């Protein structure tokens, strides 16, 4: 009996190694959002192109849509941008932008130079709405359903892989559910 007890430390060590090995494969920058399956925080913000018009999450009730947090100062957003334009062209999902802590002229220049994938962009100058959405770095992308519930959050640039494997299937499923109702 005592002879086998000697193996306990080895066993514990192996368990520790297994945990650490799993930990190494995970990205600490991807903080899981507590907002998944919760109501998207409400906001009403001026639009980027037409400052006297506002955009609100409430306006989107009954539709499945994507909210993409971006800024002209954000380097990864530049990487992501051509892909967003491509996704927007397919017309699968309406993409709206949340222009985060940016200058209006810079943001407009940026869209003028690189193209505009957004149906509309809301301007969040002081970053208050971004805090409500738990944004801690751009780009971040949310998929919001007909009832205004956040169903998915993607941190970092939306890769083709993330788009086809995460966003599109969920979007199709939500649309099917919406049609069934």
């Amino acid at each position, binding site marked *: 009996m005592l002879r086998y007890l000697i193996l306990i430390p080895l066993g514990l060590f192996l368990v520790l190694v297994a945990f650490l090995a799993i930990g190494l494969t995970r990205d600490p920058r991807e903080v899981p959002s507590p*907002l998944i399956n919760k109501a998207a925080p409400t906001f009403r913000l001026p639009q980027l192109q037409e400052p006297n018009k506002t955009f609100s999450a409430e306006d989107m009730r009954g539709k499945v849509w994507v909210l993409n947090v971006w800024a002209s100062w954000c380097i990864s957003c530049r990487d992501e941008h051509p892909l967003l334009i491509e996704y927007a062209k397919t017309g699968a999902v309406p993409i709206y932008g949340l222009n985060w802590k940016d200058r209006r002229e810079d943001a407009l220049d940026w869209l003028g130079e690189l193209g505009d994938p957004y149906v509309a962009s809301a301007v969040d100058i002081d970053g208050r709405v971004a805090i409500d959405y738990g944004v801690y770095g751009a780009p971040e992308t949310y998929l919001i359903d007909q009832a205004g519930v956040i169903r998915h959050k993607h941190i970092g640039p939306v890769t083709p892989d993330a788009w086809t494997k995460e966003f599109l299937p969920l979007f199709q499923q939500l649309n099917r559910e919406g049609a069934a109702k």
Partner: protein
Amino acid sequence: MKRALERGRLARMLQRGRSRTVRASRPRSVLLLFLLLVFVVPAALAQVRRPEPVKGDAALEERLHKLSQELRCLVCQNETLADSRADLAEDLRDEIREQMKAGKSDKEIIAFLTDRYGQFILYKPQVTPTTYLLWFGPFLLLLAGLAVLFYYIKQRRDLIAEQPLTSDERKRAEEMLRSVSGKETA
């Protein structure tokens, strides 16, 4: 008296030492300057960067500092919200400051933040079913260690306990001894 004497001797010794090292003083001063540059200057610079502009009320700032030291900056994850110079950290400090001014308690503010950023923002995780192992695991390990120790000591005591010989064994032992001593004397 004795101490004063010793001090005098020490001073003299030091002086002698100094006069002897006069020639070596230039390289040493270069070294001193180097050390100053390497250690003192960056520290001084770092200190210049640290403090944040105090906005108004000192007690509130103190409270903000204390609370934000327990919060993680999500941009530079190994820094506290109090120390971080990241834009987001500044925004969050402003948010907390405003909520404090509005009379919110620390608890309410922490709830506000965890609702948006999750438990990850807390350096000190809350006690919830998912963190039971984290909080109580060490005590579990302690108990396990005590159990092993207890078991080991008990076994050891059984092993070293004196067991009186039965009369049969005593007879055999005596025979053995006799035969051995018999051989030796022979």
